[in-house]
């Protein structure tokens, strides 16, 4: 299993799937996050391995200037 973390939420997905499929599976719009593994950014075609911990960073911020 691989783990995806978004703020204080955690999701587990099967190893062997791509990051893109994993995001779809847990209902996250890929365009709205950046994924990092060990502090480095990874792309949607990355295949998740057993024990991977992927940190998802939200890209949207709101408010106005």
């Amino acid at each position: 299993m691989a783990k995806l973390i978004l703020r204080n939420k955690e999701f587990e997905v099967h190893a062997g799937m791509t990051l893109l499929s994993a995001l779809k599976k847990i209902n996250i719009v890929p365009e709205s996050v950046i994924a990092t593994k060990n502090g480095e950014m990874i792309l949607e075609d990355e295949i998740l391995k057993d024990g991977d911990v992927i940190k998802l960073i939200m890209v949207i911020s709101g408010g106005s200037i």
Partner: protein
Amino acid sequence: MKCRKCGEKASVNMRQHKLALCKEHYLEWVPEQTERFIKKYDMFTKEEKILVAVSGGKDSLALWDILVRLGYQADGMYIGLGIDGGINYSDESRRLTEKFANEHNLKLHIVDVEKEYGQPIPVLATISHRGKGKPCAVCGLAKRHEMNRIARDLGYDVLATGHNLDDEAAVLFGNTLVWESEYLLRQGPVLPGRDGLARKVKPLCRFYEREMTAYSIARGIDYIYDECPYAEGSQSIYYKELLNQMETTRPGAKLTFYLRFLEARKSGDLFIEKNVEAAHLHPCPKCGQPTSTDDFCSFCRLIEKAAAQTAVQ
């Protein structure tokens, strides 16, 4: 995916440009592109003094970082809004802004709304009854007022803000939904200055929010990740989410939406009916329907071509 420049493993993929880059080349690409937009939209020169509105968020800190790297004279301005929201929002964003300024040896002006005017933003909003229970209207007003004031008092030529393409597209989307023609005609990368008002520019207006996040991460910029607590549930976030859903299935949709708008606005044709074509219409020799081409209408030409091809086969 591989970096287009060096073939190493890519860290950022920009589907709307069909471009993937490694971290190193991405950190080069973003400032290069910014420089291109600054020139394209005639934002400012190396001789002018720029005041960057810095909030401690990823966009404004990245903008400051990029402008300084490109060799522009860019000082920062931070406005203390006095927003706590249980997460110490203002204190934390100020700390991160000051940290960035110190680490890079940059000049930062700080205005604290409460010190200057007696009350923090949320209190001013309550007292004034403006903005349906949210302080955003008052906050926006105060920020614009204070940025203009500092720019004018300290002699800055230009005010730069970190608005990215998602910010701009969300505003455009909102204004289009209700056909706010006044606002539509004013929205753009540059708002010219007037007597007592500095020119306003948005050098990041063609980068996706996602790209600015990637830049800040790649550059190691320590920015405030938590939203302003009042941003939750805002219309702008709602529009951004909608646009991102569209972007996911149609890469480049956001970019086209914004750029085509800028083109239409620049051409001066937005909302103005064109009559030029009507003047050149003449009947198609074959079917008699009005057409602007010299010969047969487009449909008749299509049928001719199809007939010719079937004959060949």
